[in-house]
């Protein structure tokens, strides 16, 4: 029986947040603290001739100023954590990403100097006195244009700006032959536009070098404290890892953008050693726009072929992926192993080839943004299949049902092996769409749509997806180019009084781990939830961690906790057996006590815990203490799936599109806390819908980000959405002990194409047979589509 698992337990972390006591990095103050401001390039591509800091140095409150020339040559810059090879086997181009530029700036926002002063305002004031002499050059910002001959070069040693090219799947000729003999081919050119993550807490970092202990501490708004420490120590600053503590305090959202190791983190740490003072850097929102790793930015041509019956026979996808000016930590993995590998979708497509060219441009780096690659894959597949249904005059849901992979649970039936290198763990795809159609009232909607008159157009759009999360077996990702393992660690420390401290390498930035993980621990150990404390985010207390991203925390981090609990209970049973003068085989453990089978003789968890630490009457040869660590390396990715439906209404006069309803039925495996899972879905939906309707970074041809503020970038607001209608089915993951798959990104992965498809459906039904409306689908773009 479970007391907590499956229940919407209210979050234990909320108390501090609703009373204003959350502790985010910028909230931390230390004696003697000074403040850093980073002077950034206003140009996308320029040679730095000289930097004059004389006037700035003597400005009020200035403590120190460093430029690229002050940083030792040995500190080359921040590394990339994932290696992808060219098709010909050559290693990707990996130009250094220096902490501060030495010769050339390569995007607006590239760091030129760091100014440290007694107050933030004084540091900013002084930065205006720094005189930088630039020689300007032409810039390129579009990922496809960058690869054309004659485009301005971002790095001299990356010809045609190509970072790498890559392909996966069946041979191209086989796919081409299948397309040539297909009864119908749907082809689409589209852009999956660049997104700006916009976590509400701007990034912040505090570097502190403690002379007494010769020890460094970095507080940083990160999803990933241990990896940041590893990268910074081993690959950037060359510091001894045991002398460096990295703490991620409360983190105000991340959505991917706080996974990566950023130059500012290494800079404040390095500078704090030079001046022996704690240094805080917190970015302004405008800086966040320019320097938080962006997401998406794919330019794609794709073709999907069907036989006369509507069965998919082949898929060819060709994509240019924008890397920005430098390779961010996981950037190469996003358009390749997190995108190409998902192009099977939930369909039986027998021939698939995906070809990706990743290019450098004079823009900020692009990396994982909520969903990372899987939204791009889903967008590609779901736009094509909905468009194909319109072109072939078939019902878009029927076309999907016809092509779904039949159900498999991964236990009785083998996992499904795709054409693109993965084996899905378990899936049962038809029921999510069936349930979504019920919720929509599909037939009634089509009737209403048919009878629609007047100045509005109604449309319905679908998206069914499968994604990969719980990233992932270390050996597999290693073979695919990851330069890190992707396991997770957990320590379960039982205190002498039977209270339990759990140290996890997962690191919440809003997901509610302190509650969900405690539910798992309390149930598995049969103790009250209040007796469990979840500790995360501090490299000095948590043994190791790979952090939170890729919807991996519960599937990987939770499984590591379960492993440690099993060890605790196994040892506990030995102590209990000794106290009860029984054999461990004769004991049952339930509701916090061990009982001798068939008797009422029992001993409680608290007594056993105390005995472990006061081992007077104790099993011979058994070590004292009750404290276990585990590392869990998953057997496979997990594969959640779902069906999303959007209903839109377009105003014929203005092109204004109103999202009337949004229905999401997701299957994320077993659910520990339904309230939290629903919340994750809601948030993901808003971001996915935001991409379809409102958001998108715009660089002009000189490389200026022209909508780099909240006055210009259209952040989704409360009145842009209806209430979401969500439900789920449950297909457990067969290969982790909790049967969970992960819910953090599903909403964002499924929703975007559903909205675009709804607009296209409305337009077709209104007699405008357009293939695409570019995202974000502004009223102007939708209106223009209606004029054709």
């Amino acid at each position, binding site marked *: 029986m479970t007391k907590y698992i499956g229940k*919407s337990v*209210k*979050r234990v*972390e*909320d*108390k*501090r*947040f*609703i*009373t*204003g*006591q*959350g*502790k*985010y990095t*910028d*909230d931390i*103050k230390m004696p003697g603290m000074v403040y850093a401001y980073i002077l950034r390039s206003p140009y996308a591509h320029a040679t730095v001739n000289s930097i004059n800091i004389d006037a700035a140095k003597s400005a009020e409150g200035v403590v120190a100023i460093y430029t690229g020339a002050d940083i030792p040559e040995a500190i080359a810059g921040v590394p990339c954590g994932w290696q992808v090879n060219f098709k010909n086997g050559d290693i990707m181009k990996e130009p250094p990403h220096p902490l501060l530029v030495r010769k050339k700036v390569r995007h607006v926002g590239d760091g030129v100097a760091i100014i440290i002063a007694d107050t933030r*305002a004084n540091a900013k004031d002084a930065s205006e006195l720094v005189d930088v002499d630039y020689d300007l050059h032409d810039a390129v910002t579009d990922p496809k244009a960058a690869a054309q001959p004659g485009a301005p070069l971002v790095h001299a040693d990356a010809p045609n700006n190509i970072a790498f090219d890559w392909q996966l799947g069946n041979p191209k000729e086989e796919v081409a032959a299948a397309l040539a003999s297909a009864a119908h081919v749907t082809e689409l050119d589209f852009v999956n536009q660049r997104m700006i993550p*916009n*976590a*509400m*807490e*701007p990034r912040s970092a505090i570097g502190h070098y403690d002379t007494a202990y010769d020890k460094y501490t970095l507080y940083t708004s990160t999803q990933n404290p241990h990896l940041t420490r590893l990268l910074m120590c081993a690959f950037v600053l060359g510091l001894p890892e045991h002398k460096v503590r990295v703490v991620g305090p*409360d*983190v*105000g*959202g991340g*959505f991917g953008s706080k996974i990566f190791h950023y130059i500012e983190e290494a800079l404040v740490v390095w500078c704090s050693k030079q001046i022996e003072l704690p240094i805080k850097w917190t970015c*302004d*929102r*405008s800086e966040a726009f320019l320097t938080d790793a962006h997401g998406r930015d794919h330019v794609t041509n794709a073709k999907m072929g069907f036989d006369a019956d509507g069965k998919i026979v082949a898929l060819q996808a060709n994509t240019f992926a924008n890397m920005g000016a430098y390779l961010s930590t996981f950037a190469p993995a996003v358009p390749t192993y997190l995108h190409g590998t998902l192009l099977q979708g939930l369909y039986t497509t027998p021939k698939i080839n995906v070809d990706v060219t990743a290019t450098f441009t004079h823009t900020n780096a692009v990396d994982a943004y909520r969903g990372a690659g899987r939204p791009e894959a889903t967008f590609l597949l779901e736009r094509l299949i909905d468009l194909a249904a319109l072109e072939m005059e078939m019902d878009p849901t029927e076309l999907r049902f016809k092509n779904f992979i039949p159900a498999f649970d991964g236990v009785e039936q083998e996992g499904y092996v795709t054409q693109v290198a993965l084996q899905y763990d378990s899936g049962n795809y038809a029921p999510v769409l069936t349930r979504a159609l019920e919720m929509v009232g599909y037939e009634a909607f089509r009737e209403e749509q048919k009878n629609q008159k007047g100045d509005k157009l109604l449309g319905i759009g679908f998206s069914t997806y499968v994604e990969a999360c719980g990233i992932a077996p270390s050996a597999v990702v290693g073979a695919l180019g990851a330069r890190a393992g992707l396991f997770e660690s957990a320590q379960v420390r039982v205190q002498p009084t039977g209270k339990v401290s759990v140290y996890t390498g997962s690191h919440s*930035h*809003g*997901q*509610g781990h302190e509650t969900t993980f405690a539910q798992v621990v309390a149930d598995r150990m049969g103790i009250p939830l209040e007796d469990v404390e979840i500790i995360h985010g501090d490299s000095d207390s948590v043994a190791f961690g790979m952090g939170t991203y890729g919807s991996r925390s519960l599937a990987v981090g939770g499984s590591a906790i379960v492993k440690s609990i099993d060890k605790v209970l196994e040892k506990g049973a030995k102590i209990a057996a000794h106290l009860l003068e029984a054999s461990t085989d004769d004991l049952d453990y339930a509701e916090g006590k061990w009982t001798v089978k068939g008797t009422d003789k029992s001993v409680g968890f608290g007594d056993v815990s105390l005995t472990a630490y006061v081992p007077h009457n104790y099993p011979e040869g058994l070590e004292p203490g009750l404290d276990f660590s585990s590392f869990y390396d998953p057997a496979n990715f997990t594969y959640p799936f779902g069906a999303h439906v959007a209903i839109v209404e377009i105003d014929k006069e203005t092109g204004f599109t109103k999202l009337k309803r949004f229905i999401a039925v997701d299957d994320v495996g077993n659910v520990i806390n339904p*309230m*939290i899972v*629903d*919340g994750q879905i*809601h*948030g*993901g*939906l*808003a*971001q996915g819908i935001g991409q379809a309707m409102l958001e998108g970074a715009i660089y002009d041809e000189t490389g200026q980000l022209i909508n780099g*503020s*909240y*006055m210009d970038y259209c*952040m989704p*607001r*409360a*009145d842009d*959405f209806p*209430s*979401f209608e969500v439900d789920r089915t449950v297909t457990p993951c067969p290969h982790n002990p909790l049967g969970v798959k992960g819910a953090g990104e599903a*909403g964002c992965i499924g929703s975007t194409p559903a909205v675009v498809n709804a607009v296209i459906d409305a337009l077709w039904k209104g007699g405008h047979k357009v293939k695409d409306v570019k995202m974000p689908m502004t009223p102007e773009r939708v209106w223009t589509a209606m004029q054709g």
Partner: protein
Amino acid sequence: MANKISVTVNGKQYTGEVESRTLLSDYLREDLSLTGTHIGCDTSSCGACTIHIDGKAVKSCTMLAVQADGCEVTTVEGLATNGNLHPMQESFKEEHGLQCGFCTPGMMMTATDFLKTNPNPSEQEIREALEGNFCRCTGYHNIVRSIQLAAKKMSEAV
């Protein structure tokens, strides 16, 4: 230039010197260490810094500290009274109206003022009232539910 100001914040009187250019949001965070008021932007768009001035919701980054001289300020730290959570705080917890918590103080300060003028709002009115407050985590869904619940609790209390 330093200016002398005197403000009452969460019922406590503070007197001190501030630079003319210091924003009220910075004064609260840096001088008074009331870090529950968050700063999420530099264009007065996001609402994370929302507080009450003489009972009205105001984005504290749109005001200079000197302008608050003589005012009654309430920040999120002052929302609970005598250790009892405000119904808005309870409702955010009960309806899962927060994830990372960064937007939450501003959301609650905007919402409590809004309910004063519109104690029984429709869903659409709530959504419109939140136009100046961004949340990136929740999709606003449960924030709306939280405010609906708070409205119910508060009308039952009177």
